[in-house]
């Protein structure tokens, strides 16, 4: 089963990277989200799949009565999900900002590479009029 999941992860990775390489920023974000999912599955696979109950301790005992799923990767993934969510939000905002400033989301377009008039293009010339 783990090997099948590994194959799934590999294919998801390919798709995610293909999108991220396309040079268009919306696709980049989609690829990023896809890769987040792939990585979560990767961590999950590393903790092994088992068709057993969740890592909860029953109402009576002090330790799980029956074998339960590996809790450690789950804790890691939970953190990873929320962090990749925050990063996705940030990327989306960057996208929004980029478009507002450059009017394009294609990284290969010339005016995207050079800085647009509204940008801080003059930031490295020293200011004379300010004290």
């Amino acid at each position: 089963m783990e090997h099948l999941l590994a194959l799934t992860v590999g294919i998801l990775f390919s798709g995610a990277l293909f999108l991220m390489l396309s040079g268009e920023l919306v696709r980049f974000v989609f690829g990023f989200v896809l890769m987040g999912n792939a990585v979560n599955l990767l961590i999950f696979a590393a903790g092994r799949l088992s068709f057993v109950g969740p890592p909860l301790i029953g109402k009576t005992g002090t330790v799980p009565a029956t074998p339960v799923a590996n809790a450690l990767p789950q804790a890691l993934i939970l953190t990873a999900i929320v962090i990749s969510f925050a990063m996705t939000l940030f990327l989306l905002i960057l996208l929004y900002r980029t478009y507002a400033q450059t009017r394009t989301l294609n990284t290969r377009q010339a005016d995207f590479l050079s800085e647009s008039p509204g940008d801080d293009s003059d930031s490295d010339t020293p200011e004379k009029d300010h004290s």
Partner: protein
Amino acid sequence: MRITPPDTGAVPDCCRKGLYSCLLPAGLFALLCLAWPRVVNGDVFTVQWAWVPSLDLNLALRLDGLSLLFGLIITMTGFFVTIYASSYMAGHPQNGRFFVFLHAFMIAMLGIVFADNLLLMFICWEATTMLSFLLIGFDHEKSDARENARQALLVTGAGGLFLLMGILLLKSAGFSMTLSVLSESADVIQNHALYPAIFICFMVGAMTKSGQVPFHFWLPNAMSAPTPISAFLHAATMVKAGIYLLMRLHPVMGGTPLWMSTLVLVGGATALWGAIQALGPCDLKRILAHTTLMALGILTLFLGGQTVLSLTAATTFLMVHALYKAALFLAVGSIDHQTGTRDLNDLGGLATRMPLTALAVAGATLSMAGFPLFFGFIGKEIMYAGALAEDMFPLFAAGITLSANALMTAVAAIILLTPFAGTLPAHLKNTCETPWTMRIGPAFMGLIGVVFGIMPEWVSENLIQPAVFAFHPDREEIRLFLFHGINLPLVLSIITLTSGAVIYRQKIRLRRGIRFLTDHLWVTMPGLYQSGLTRFLTTAATVTRILQNGSLTTYMSVIVFTLVVLTGSVWLPHVADIASIPAVTGPYIAMGLFVFVLGAAAVVVTARHRLAAIGGLGGVGGGVALIFLVFGAPDIALTQLLVETLTLIFVSLILLRLPPMEPIVKPGATFQARTLRNAILSISAGLLVFTLVSGVVSTPLDRSLTAFFETHSYVSAHGRNIVNVILVDFRSLDTLGEICVIVLAAWAGVHLIRRPFGQRKAP
């Protein structure tokens, strides 16, 4: 720099704050004075706090005779420089910054001399490097100040790296990081195979800091600092740090032929070159800077010796130099401040206009020239005695000392006579004396030069001997006297004074000759530095242009390509080791979910419209959540579903404001090499990930951590949900870091959204 109109007497109100800050050095000086009598008796004060014990890094401070001597010089000079600067810098717009830097620098310097741990000393060493950058470049609106500050930073910073390397070599050879312990294993260190490397690293560090040839060039250029800073840096602090390091290392590494020959030769070269160059310029400050080089060379030369006499000579001259150099720098600053120039050709006859400054300069220069009854005379006598007692090259050392001293005598005469004697030029008619704050420092230090010259026994007993004992094991008593009787050193002293007078008579001709010489050198260190720096910067610019070309696709391609090639080349030979993939036995529902996720992903990759892609992403997220649920992870399944929902909301909120996607393959284009290349890259990366994960899951699983969490989750942490207990209890520090990331991302995002367009960020 003429900021305030030259008026007499009162201190302007605006500089009171600077004046009050002299309480800091004064207080430290008083503290050291409290410890002084006990240090003279041979007591050593130590304090120690563990800082990073695993790295041998302790906040270990130690006060012995040598530290005390340096501490007294640093705080005393700091005190007078602060008082002086309160008037000198008055009205400067960045007055406050100046005093903060000055005192921070002083404290860093005290850190060097009190540190008993080599790593702690290095930290303070680097602090002085950085603060000296800020101080030399204080007038940062002038381009040469910036240039010179950078030069000082690069040269001394590079030397600092050598010092660190030496410290780490010493540590890797298994020696202690504590200086006072280190000297006990001197024999082992000196016979260690790494000794030459360690010595060279330490030596380069000390040479760059103390301006030894061939790293001397930054020091005269550091004159672009405001004059009080030059006085502080040159007389007492920055450049003496290297000398201090050599003194501290003397009992550890000194005495070998390598140590002796290197120090004597380097020091001799520096002393001679500095003394010759001091005759060249007309700028008073540059003259003083070159005499500092000479003094540092002489100090290094004497530290190359092994006898108590030679080390006593070094320590005595250190004090002599600190006293006269600080006084002279401050006095030159006063001349500059009152007349607006420091050029010898424009100055003359100021003795009538600035009598007290003239007196202070007279005291300092006579001490510098080594006239009897002045402290410098004592210093010179012991120097000759020490040079003649050197183990290696005694005649070379004596010769260098003699010629350097003769040149110094001439320079002292130039500094005293040219500005103050002779007729007063017309443009200086209105010059008047400085306020008291600018007179007290030079006057007091000039006066000490005389007092110490008259009572050398007291000085040697209370200052010099405790210092020498701290870094020389033989407690051989060397007493300084006013008059040692008629002997060889006295004869040499007389030769020095007469030849100095001869050189002074010929000063104009000599100046021309030296200028001709320095202008016609084929290779100069500043030239080498400049061309090296230029080449380095152009290379860096080229590399940056190639690597940072602004194309996201290029960056990504490089990253993915590197991943595939590097990881793949290591991993591929082991792929065959993966145990044969077992027959699939798992639940068919899971397989169905995998297929579903892949199908949804295919929709995302091939989507021509955003809505399709968003839908596909939702499918992938939901499918992944179900996979989690099937394999016993309801917690993450729940979180994943909720995150999917929120992501969907935000994606639609933002994508509504963006243009539609462009197709991957442009309509009409049948074949695009770029798309093909991207596909090959991503597929090979995916294959790599697949084989890697397969490899990982083929190895046995270590469940010991999980077992720990399972047994302790309820017993110790009172929670039945093991995942949640890990998050909020066992690994809560990780979670704390995570929510910090989230809050930071949100904060940055909010400001990106809110920041107005086309405007610079508010300063």
